[in-house]
């Protein structure tokens, strides 16, 4: 009995492994996570040229204003931020810290997109967790393996290892004039629900859209030969750039899946949704814009289908063929 009573405080206050120490450590960890998230949020405001106050931060981080004040105090103590009136601003030190976290986040997203089979909607959430755990060395090594990506899968530039980031380009989708074409250069992945909706609509960076009509309530635009509707509010999560003369675009009207056996067609491009190893494999096999491809025959179960690509028979599954866009070959005679 007595020993049992002695055991309780021991369990709680034991150095290193005691509950108290663990709890303290967790608290410190949480605090660090909030600090890092706050820096990231501040950097985003700065990048987009909008101002950021305590209320806004609380909303973005999902914590109370009191907590935000506490976090900011900590950040000030370490000279990572400074306040000017209501506004909270990053110091140089704070900015480079934020860029480091953003780099880790975006590299991890690239890793998930290119090297794993994780669902697209999970990338951001998983990266949000990992960004506080990985060291810069680990991330640089990972980046090296991935071919040092400079854009993440959402089209955001990734800060370089030395902490540089290019100036933002483009405009929100709603600023695209009616009748004009633009290229999606970025899909904002926050909040996740909105991002999920954009992905579900089939939007992706690199996609060409044409604005058909817009008013206060909705935008009507065309992508991949389909008409899409979007609320103007959501459309601020889609950044586009006006299409230029020399831009490479492919009219992604017809997918290879729809081509009947025996019809030779020309490859127009591979959808951005097909990434990483998978995408490179297809291109190495000769499925590249301009080359011809012809469905030859199907397996007894109806799938896969064998295609003639530059004289070789290559079997592709439906989900691959779906991502390959083709053009019918005009028969001159």
């Amino acid at each position, binding site marked *: 009995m007595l020993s049992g009573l002695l055991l309780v405080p021991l369990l709680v206050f034991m150095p290193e492994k005691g509950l108290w120490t663990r709890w303290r450590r967790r608290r410190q960890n949480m605090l660090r996570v909030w600090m890092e998230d706050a820096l990231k949020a501040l950097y985003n405001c700065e990048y987009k040229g909008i101002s950021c106050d305590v209320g806004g931060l609380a909303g973005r981080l999902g914590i109370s204003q009191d907590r935000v004040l506490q976090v900011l105090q900590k950040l000030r103590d370490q000279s990572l931020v400074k306040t000017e009136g209501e506004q909270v601003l990053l110091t140089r030190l704070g900015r480079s810290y934020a860029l480091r976290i953003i780099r880790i986040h975006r590299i991890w997203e690239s890793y998930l997109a290119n090297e794993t089979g994780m669902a697209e909607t999970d990338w951001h959430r998983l990266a949000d967790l990992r960004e506080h755990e990985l060291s810069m060395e680990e991330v640089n090594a990972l980046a*090296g393996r991935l071919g040092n990506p400079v854009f993440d899968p959402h089209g955001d530039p990734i800060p370089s290892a030395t902490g*540089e980031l290019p100036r933002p380009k483009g405009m929100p989708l709603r600023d695209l004039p009616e009748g004009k074409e633009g290229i999606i250069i970025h899909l904002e992945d926050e909040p996740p629900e909105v991002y999920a909706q954009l992905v579900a609509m089939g939007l992706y960076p690199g996609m060409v859209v044409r604005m058909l009509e817009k008013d206060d309530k909705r935008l009507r635009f065309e992508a991949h030969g389909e008409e899409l509707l979007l609320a103007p509010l959501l459309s601020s999560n889609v950044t586009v750039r006006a299409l230029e003369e020399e831009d490479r675009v492919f009219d992604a009207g017809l997918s290879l899946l729809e081509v009947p056996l025996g019809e030779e067609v020309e490859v127009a491009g591979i959808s951005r949704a097909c990434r*990483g190893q998978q995408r490179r494999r297809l*291109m190495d096999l*000769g499925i590249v814009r301009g080359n011809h491809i012809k469905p030859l*025959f199907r*397996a*007894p179960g109806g799938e896969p289908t*064998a295609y003639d690509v530059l*004289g070789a028979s290559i079997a592709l599954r439906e989900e691959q063929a779906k991502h390959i866009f083709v053009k019918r070959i005009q028969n001159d005679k």
Partner: protein
Amino acid sequence: MTNSECKSCPVHHEAHLRALGIDMSRYDFVVALAGNPNTGKSTLFNALTGLRQHTGNWPGKTVARAEGAFAFGESRYKVVDLPGTYSLLSTSTDEEVARDFILFGKPDVTVIVVDATRLQRSLNLVLQILEITDRAVLALNLMDEAGRHGIEVDVRGLSKALGVPVVPMVARSREGLPTLLQMIDEVATGAYRCKPRRLKMERRVVEEMVCSLEEKLAEVFPGVPNLRWVALRLLEGDQSMMEAVSEGHLGAYEALPESEPEEVLALAQELRWQLGTDFHDELMESIFSEAAKIAGKVVRMEGKKEAFSLDRAIDRVVTSRLWGFPIMLGLLALVFWLTIVGANYPSAMLSGLLVERGHPFLRDLFLSVGAPAWLTGLLIDGAYLSAAWVVSVMLPPMAIFFPLFTLLEDFGYLPRVSFNMDRLFKRVGAHGKQALTMSMGFGCNAAGVVATRVIDSPRERLIAIITNNFALCNGRWPLQILLATVFIGAVAPAHWAGVISAAAVVGVAVLGILFSLAVSWALSRTVLKGEASAFSLELPPYRPPRFWETLYTSFIERTLIVLWRAVVFALPAGMVIWLLANVHVGGLPLAEHFIRAADPVAMIFGLNGVILLAYLVAIPANELVIPTILMLTVMHLGMEGVAPGQGVLFELEDAQGIAEIFTAGGWTLLTAVNVMLFSLLHNPCSTTIYTIYKETGSAKWTALATFLPIGLGLLVCLLVALVAG
């Protein structure tokens, strides 16, 4: 002898080729063989070196690089057969091996082996290699097939377009080999100076960016010949290239002392942001459009008939709804039938030689020289006997099964099986090629695991490795057949006995396939959920296999290697078995202690202590299970007069005698059924476990592949025991 003299006497030249095998003690030049998969690199390698690298009609067989040597004229050459790749711009390990060798291995000559029937497709790689090196020779292989398909290539035009020598050849029959050797020699010695064609990006803005980076590089690394390639690699973010630049040396070239390599990297970074995400796509497009231009000029199709129309016709039949599966099953059944029937006789002969004659002979020999009984027991009754057993049971079926399989492979039929089966395997998250590695597993699981190398997607390959053990390998067939005959056939009416026991064995094998599918499904949804996957399956052209060559290589490569490993593992196992049966503690053999302790537990699973012990000691080779069970049962019961010797492995010819031993050992129909099930569902043999470890390089996956089947086996046996009880 001067070069000009010899151009007119090619036969003379071939005489100057001396294959040196793997003797690479001294060489003057290094030759690399690069090219797309399945274009005849290994065939050429073998022709040059006299070695016998496996060549097969299936992309992706040469996994690591092979090395050999030959001498020609005055010079000695080292040859390196690189893994086949389609490109040097991606990140797969094969490509890295090839790329790093061409770039950093600094071969004196790179021979690019190209498929003349698909020139345009091969040119992708050719143009990439010519970016890196200017000492290359193009071997335009498979000219015989090109001729058959009415494809004509303007060799001189191609050589002019590419700026390197082009040699038309047929590697299989060594046609064109003398000229190739001649050109290799000329390029190596510098007598021929290549002026390789260099790439240009299609879009002007992009081309300007590449040029600006190239210029910046030239400021820092003046004189480096392939700066454009370096620039392209930097724009693709190649880590090793970035490191080389930042450390200030590109291969043998050093950065200028005052220059700032970091500025190059900073510019590259800036350009990459401007280029956006599509640079790789654009690069590939530029290469392929160049390839199309060249091919358009030099390739001519003769006649109206479409090339490969015969291939396509065969394909339509073997993949048709009506005939696809019947042909597949028919061929598979034929292979099995030939294996089982064909193996009977040699197996009996080997067993007669090694076990019935060899064993007593060696035993007497040992005793006659006065070796102590324990040594004779340990070495002869233990190690020798179990190894002899493994050889006589394993060798004949494998020596028939694998060559047959390899013939189908060389013909090009196997990829069609994957094609037909892919839909089924896709449903369980696996690759169609798993159908093949599984079939291979029927011969030997270790060989099946090695064969998964043809699956180039990491996730699907792991699935295929982990589930291969569910394919009932031929070391386990004898046990199935024996128990089915003795127990299951016995309960059936006499004239049905044969059919029913055969059906039981097939049933177990089919159950194995079902387990394999179910486990694949479960794995791909649980532990392997997030693993990357990339499907691709190429259907190579049909090619008449070279019969004897195939028999020889498949025998050496598959059969002997597997057998050797099995024997190595069986030797110590035999000693352990002998010790267990012959070392007495407290008046009883060690085995007896185990059997008594394990019996109550084993009964729960409808097995017994003897069986558990037999499976434990037979981990090295499944073939040992039956002899061990018989020996232990006889020992356990203290039966007299049935066995050749106490505590020695044996097997009986007649089913009646075996049945008596089993019945005396307390076996029932339930025991037999559970042993059959457990034989299907237990850990892989040690050879396979070792192979899994070597192929995956991971203790985690090896452990999973080892323990998952045992867990399943015990579970299934428990369920059957409960139902039957």
